[in-house]
């Protein structure tokens, strides 16, 4: 292969991320790119190490999915000095934008906003107590998706977040926390909707709701983010109501931008925003499930 690209991935902490990795590898293979993959196991220091190694190896370009927004200036500067273009995937960084070529990301705040809007529209003025399952405390999706959701709720006095706890983005914790929400809110009779920062927690919570003798999707509305295959199954069964897609194919646009740049030096825009598409039960969930199933989620 003539093009060597280094890809520093955060880790493999969720099905979504595994799918992103799979898709990135697929896209690289299709384009005949030699992809150097480095898994950072959730640690920024490992990502910085990986970037430095890529620079030392002299790769042609670097894809970076940053675990956290801050702390990249120095190593990005090094890459720039070595004239290696860097493309950010799925999250942005807190650094001057001349340090990277472009960022292919979704807008995390916007995602939360879409979810919140949907809920506000759906309950349409009726009073509604919401419980929130946050992502890992301190992680940027947790912070931003909370922010976006709250923005969407402001001005709707009928909507109230009554409980909010972290479910660590996992099904197990989602289920456990939901169980205690149900206990704390009068067996769930007090809860009208659940907002989960990702689908996995929602899937866990749906089980908890069912085990408590309530009907998820009807008694308690369920909205979450990511659009992983399993949530479509739940939607098909009427147990989840809506999800906001975060596409795992960030690499495709990134490689396109890179190819254009390599060909004639076209600089891509600084931000290539992916769509945050809302899916509801009306969107033939089973079909989408089938389409998404094979992607390594």
């Amino acid at each position: 292969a003539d093009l060597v690209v280094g890809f520093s991935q955060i880790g493999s902490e969720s099905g979504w991320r595994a799918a992103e990795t799979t898709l990135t590898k697929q896209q690289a293979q299709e384009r005949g790119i030699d992809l150097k993959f480095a898994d950072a196991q959730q640690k920024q220091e490992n990502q910085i190490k990986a970037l430095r190694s890529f620079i030392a190896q002299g790769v042609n370009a670097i894809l970076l999915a940053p675990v956290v927004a801050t702390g990249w200036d120095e190593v990005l500067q090094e890459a720039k000095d070595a004239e290696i273009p860097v493309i950010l995937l799925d999250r942005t960084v807190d650094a001057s934008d001349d340090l990277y070529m472009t960022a292919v990301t979704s807008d995390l705040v916007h995602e939360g906003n879409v979810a919140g809007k949907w809920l506000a529209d759906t309950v349409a003025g009726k009073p509604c107590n919401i419980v929130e399952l946050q992502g890992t405390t301190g992680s940027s999706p947790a912070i931003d998706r909370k922010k976006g959701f709250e923005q969407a709720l402001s001005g709707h006095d009928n909507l109230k977040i009554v409980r909010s706890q972290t479910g660590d983005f996992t099904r197990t914790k989602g289920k456990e926390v939901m169980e205690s929400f149900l206990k704390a809110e009068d067996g769930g009779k007090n809860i009208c909707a659940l907002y989960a920062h990702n689908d996995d927690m929602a899937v866990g919570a749906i089980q908890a709701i069912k085990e408590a003798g309530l009907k998820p999707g009807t008694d308690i509305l369920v909205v979450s983010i990511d659009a992983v295959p399993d949530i479509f199954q739940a939607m098909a069964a009427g147990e989840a109501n809506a999800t906001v897609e975060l596409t795992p194919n960030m690499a495709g646009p990134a490689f396109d931008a890179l190819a254009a740049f390599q060909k004639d030096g076209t600089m891509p825009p600084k931000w290539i925003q992916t769509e945050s598409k809302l899916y509801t039960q009306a969107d033939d969930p089973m079909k989408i499930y089938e389409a998404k199933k094979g992607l390594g989620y």
Partner: protein
Amino acid sequence: MTAILKGYALRLLPQIIALAAILLMVSFVFPGFFRLEIQNGRLYGSLIDILNRGAPVVLLAIGMTVVIATKGIDLSVGAVMAICGAVAASSITSGHSLAMTLVITLGTGILCGLWNGVLVALLDIQPIIATLVLMVAGRGIAQLVTEGAILTFNDPGLIFLGSGSFAWLPLPVIIWLVFGILVALIVRKTALGMLIEAIGINRQASTLSGVLTPVLLIAAYMLSGLCAAIAGTIAAADIKGADANNAGLWLELDAILAVVIGGTSLLGGRFSIAASVLGAIIIQSINTGILLSGFPPEFNLIIKAAIIVFILVLQSPPVRNAFTFVALLRTSRKPTERQAR
């Protein structure tokens, strides 16, 4: 007989008091805490949640107790949970029967324990490091099985293990109760308990006395692997899927903590499985209590740390001695008189 029972109660007293205090505290921040009702043919309430959610840590703590009694430690249990959950899910989805799946899964756990045990007992590698190898690699192995995704399944039999109920209790609770009693009986009704303690206190002297040290050491790690396998199966069955990335993550620390709260020394020797089980339930009560309390999640860790420190300080030798001293003062006359004889 009553004397033995009394000794037993005395041994568990600090844990029981700590548990009672925590439950009481939680009931202050959440008044409905002690409410129990029957719903869908099983008991339903926060207390049951504690027993149910505590299942993985209780199970891990049972195996961990025995390992720690041998002066070892098993950091790999969380990863082994993930491996076994993954194996169970992939076995059931590839069409094996439930029985076969359980055999394969528990076998995998025991195999993991065997690996740890061999490193510790035969290659003489320090337990923390020996089990660190599997802790690091194990999650990778689990992901290898699930290929990084959450491997979901629909087999009602397997799901029953995680969220079914029997005799009004959730099945995980029944499983850990039965398993815990079984292990405790095996260990105490045979000579195993004493031999394990002997190894933990003085391995050289035990070997010289003819105790089969390597075999018992390996067996201890195998038991721990088996416990992790059961815990992993329950955790997977609970969410109807194997999450190789997150199943059992950091649970090894909770299990170790449970054993220590249970009063078993990390330096090996004397152990009590019942006390460790209580320790695990104490930890789960703290976790559930925090969730019920409605504090913002930023405070979770600090609250947990503070309560644990408090319990452990109360249990520390100087503080305990101070208490027994006070107790002794009250009944001081008799023992000294017996002395004088």
